[in-house]
């Protein structure tokens, strides 16, 4: 296979991965997996929003809860901006609601990570199939 195909393929995989990160389900959408994309998008976004609603925006804490924040960042780059807002510490977060909110938002992020990996892998398989044809 020529080097250019490999270069283009790697770039394609990176673009798919980035799209899947920016919008949950975006990678699958570009790969013409529309239904899969909608199911992923609705579920991940809903789980994340439920977490934010239960625990408040303060559950995104880039200062005192870094490991959770890393998992939350997997949802979308938009979480970075939410983290900047909540870093001021003006949003209260406490008790059971804080725990549940943190767990929901982090699990949503990890689920999106699974979808990013799946979208990149699917794109890779499609690329290989196209190269052989």
């Amino acid at each position, binding site marked *: 296979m020529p080097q250019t195909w490999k270069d283009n393929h790697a770039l394609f995989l990176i673009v798919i991965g980035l799209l899947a990160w920016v919008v949950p389900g975006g990678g699958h959408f570009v790969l013409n997996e529309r239904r899969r994309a909608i199911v992923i998008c609705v*579920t*991940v976004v809903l789980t994340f929003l439920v977490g934010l609603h*239960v625990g408040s925006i303060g559950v995104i804490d880039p200062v005192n809860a870094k490991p959770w924040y890393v998992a939350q960042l997997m949802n979308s780059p938009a979480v970075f901006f939410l983290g900047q807002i909540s870093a001021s510490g003006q949003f209260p977060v406490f008790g*059971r609601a804080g725990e549940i909110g943190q767990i929901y938002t982090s699990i949503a992020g990890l689920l999106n990570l*699974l*979808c990013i990996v799946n979208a990149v892998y699917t794109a890779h398989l499609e690329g290989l199939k196209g190269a052989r044809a």
Partner: protein
Amino acid sequence: MMALTCTLLASFTTPMRIDTNAASMLWLIPLVVAIAVVYKATKVHQIRAKAFAKETILLIGSIMVFIAVSALILHGIAWLVTEQLPAMAGGSAF
């Protein structure tokens, strides 16, 4: 409309009131549903409503049963350690 939007946004700035009791464990269910739906969405070859719902419900059931069995076993171990062992040793754990 503006008031509704403000109310909606404001609901994201304060945490809900959730007590630390057995009922709070029910918050597990929506999370299990989300995990099962996304996992199955990445695994099935094609998403067809009926087959997808069936597989997802099966996975949700499996996870719930596994959690219930794990909880029972852990509860049994905790009961043995805190109730039975101290009684055998002739004293209380606390």
